[in-house]
């Protein structure tokens, strides 16, 4: 118990604690949004549009419809975190599975997973894939999660595949087999933990990409369904008045940057935590 605590303490620097605090705060606030800011994020008040931050009653100002930006940021956090996390999770699970199976079994399995699924998906320009699926199924957060899950899965598959190829040749995998591990055990309990480090790093990158893509799709008009608040959508619409009203783009952008930074730091922490060999300051 004590050693475990010590390891956690070892993996967390001040900055990483701050990142954790930020993410937790975000999660709590987004869940409690209606209580913290009892303003309907959809309520329009066109007369009071584009108020700057600090305007009375609107801590972070209002947007082009006079909707409260703070309420939209907090309510958007739920959507955003859901999309970013959901999409990354779907991609990570799907991709890791493909990569593991392809790398571990090789041969036909490899052809099916890595070539037929992963390479084919990769060969499609992501924008087109997103465009097509969103057009067919209509925009919305669940479509986005599915789209991005599919879109980012091959990235995971590639990484996991490469790692699996080298890990499966290591003797401890043979050892597991020799000591009676079933194939699934060898795959998920022995190989998988040894390929997690890059998965975690990739996960944090993909979360960033998901937020970015969400905002890119919003820019192209294919993001979250219109009135619902999302950060990407806010950035996309803020870009239009960037010259005149910088705050409309700055506020959501800053939140996005800090969120991505925090997730990156947390990913590093998690990776260190899971790697028994990692310790503070062991650099070349």
């Amino acid at each position, binding site marked *: 118990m004590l050693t475990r605590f010590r390891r956690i303490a070892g993996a967390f620097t001040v900055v990483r604690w701050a990142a954790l605090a930020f993410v937790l705060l975000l999660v709590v606030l987004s869940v409690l949004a209606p209580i913290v800011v009892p303003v309907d994020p*959809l*309520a*329009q008040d*066109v*007369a009071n*549009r584009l108020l700057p931050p600090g305007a009375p009653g609107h801590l972070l100002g209002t947007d*082009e*419809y*006079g909707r409260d930006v703070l309420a939209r940021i907090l309510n958007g956090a739920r959507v955003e975190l859901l999309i970013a996390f959901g999409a990354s999770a779907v991609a990570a699970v799907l991709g890791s599975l493909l990569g593991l199976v392809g790398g571990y079994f090789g041969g036909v399995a490899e052809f099916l997973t890595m070539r037929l699924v992963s390479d084919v998906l990769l060969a499609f320009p992501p924008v087109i894939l997103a465009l097509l699926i969103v*057009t067919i199924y*209509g*925009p919305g957060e669940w479509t986005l999660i599915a789209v991005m899950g599919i879109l980012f899965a091959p990235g995971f598959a590639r990484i996991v595949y490469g790692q699996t190829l080298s890990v499966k040749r290591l003797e401890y995998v043979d050892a597991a087999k020799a000591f009676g591990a079933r194939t699934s055990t060898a795959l998920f309990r022995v190989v998988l933990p040894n390929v997690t480090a890059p998965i975690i790093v990739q996960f944090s990158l993909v979360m960033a990409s998901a937020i970015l893509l969400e905002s890119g799709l919003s820019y192209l*008009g*294919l993001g979250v*369904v*219109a*009135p619902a608040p999302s950060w990407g959508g806010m950035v996309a*619409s803020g*870009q*239009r*008045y960037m*010259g*005149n009203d910088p705050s409309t783009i700055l506020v959501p952008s800053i939140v996005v940057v800090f969120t991505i930074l925090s997730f990156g730091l947390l990913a590093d922490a998690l990776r260190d935590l899971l790697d028994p060999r990692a310790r503070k300051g062991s650099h070349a």
Partner: protein
Amino acid sequence: ASSTPNSSAAPEQTLRFGLSGEPQDVKVGADQGSTGYTLDALIHRGLMAYDVDGELVPALAESFEEIDPATYSFTLREGLEFSDGTPLTSANVKNTLLFLADPANGARTLAAMRNITEVETPDERTAIVHLSENNADFVSYLADSTAFIAPDEALSADAVATVGAGPFVIEQDDAGVQLVLARNDAYYDADAVTLDSIDLVFYPDGTARTNALVSGDVDLIDYVPWEQFSTLESTDGVTMDVQNGLLMDIEFNVTDGPFADPLVREAVAYAVNRDSVVDAAFFGNAKAIYGPPIPESSDYYTDESQELWEYDPEHAKELLAEAGYPDGFSTTILTTSQYVFHQDTALTVQADLAEIGIDAELDSPDWATRMEKATSGDFQLKINGWGGIVSEPAYLESYLGGPDLAKSFGWNDPEIMAALAAGRTGADVESRKAAYSEAIDLIGTNVPFVPLVQRGQAFAYKDSVTGFSNLPGFLTFFSGYTLASTSISAG
């Protein structure tokens, strides 16, 4: 530009025009959107056109004569030629007009052209057009820039009409980047054209287009995005030229559901705060309207016609209750995410409808999908943006009589259509006035559509550009005509 015999003394004049998109291949009569109208106005000419003040003027026709309201005689200018040197005769006029009249060719001006029964060509310079019924505005239709006269080779569905009788010719086509136009010396009024060439540079992105003008990369841009109006207005050396043109409206699916009931439609007409649309979707650069727009200069303008409804949510609620929906209902609004202002309009409408108890969900796919849904009636409410071909109320007839895609789905009211037809065919101004005013009154109660705003349509150009003008109202898209008299002043 290789052909510059006229302007021997003056330096080469090239206008760089930041165009809001790459025009499609020019097809005779086809509606190809604003970039298409502009290109047509540059390389082609019809019998009629508009001058800098938006006045209807003869173009290829030297003059015309209304023999009776269903028969027009046009006299062509002398020695007309297409840009490839072939002569332009009344035969070309006849063939082109008959081509436009064929519904299968989908001409933009079909509403008027389909009435053509016969075109007589007594001589090379005379064309007499016979219509099946009176049409007071027929000549205005001929000024539509898509109604240009084309050589016979271009008169087929898959031909590209690059040879024209307009002031400019396409000299170079850098697909995806720009079209370089040079002055057409075969143009009947070539001497009056001062620009030696026009570079039509394509800037599909509004911000990029604005930036190009501000940074001096281009001299003129069309379709200024609304959020940039104020930026450009305050930019030194740039002129903003705004005209309230196309209108945004709400259209209905009247085949079933609540909106089959005119009372509910009327409730919607009273429920929407047009000023919010003006502000939120167009940044104040639009005009709130409470009736189908008719220019004040028109004979048929009346104040009442522009005040069919007002913003009165209470009254809207009463109407709803009367229609049997005291607690409102749920519905959907079809709009498109591809055009921000469509979606923004829908958003404010959505908020206003919520106020009177109508809970509308937004359906915002891309334009092509929206079009398919509109065609098949897969919607309840939809946001549309459109403009008439002519400024007279006659446009309402082609609008309301047009395909379902472009109006309320399933809407058909013989009474209104009859009144509009009477307006068009009326023998004199007074009888037309009466007919139109009846039609407009009927529109007020039947509510085939809810006009919301007439959006500001802006060109912006450097102060050095002179002679260009944004034509008023629906004519804004034909502003390309004025490039024939545009010049760039030194400095």
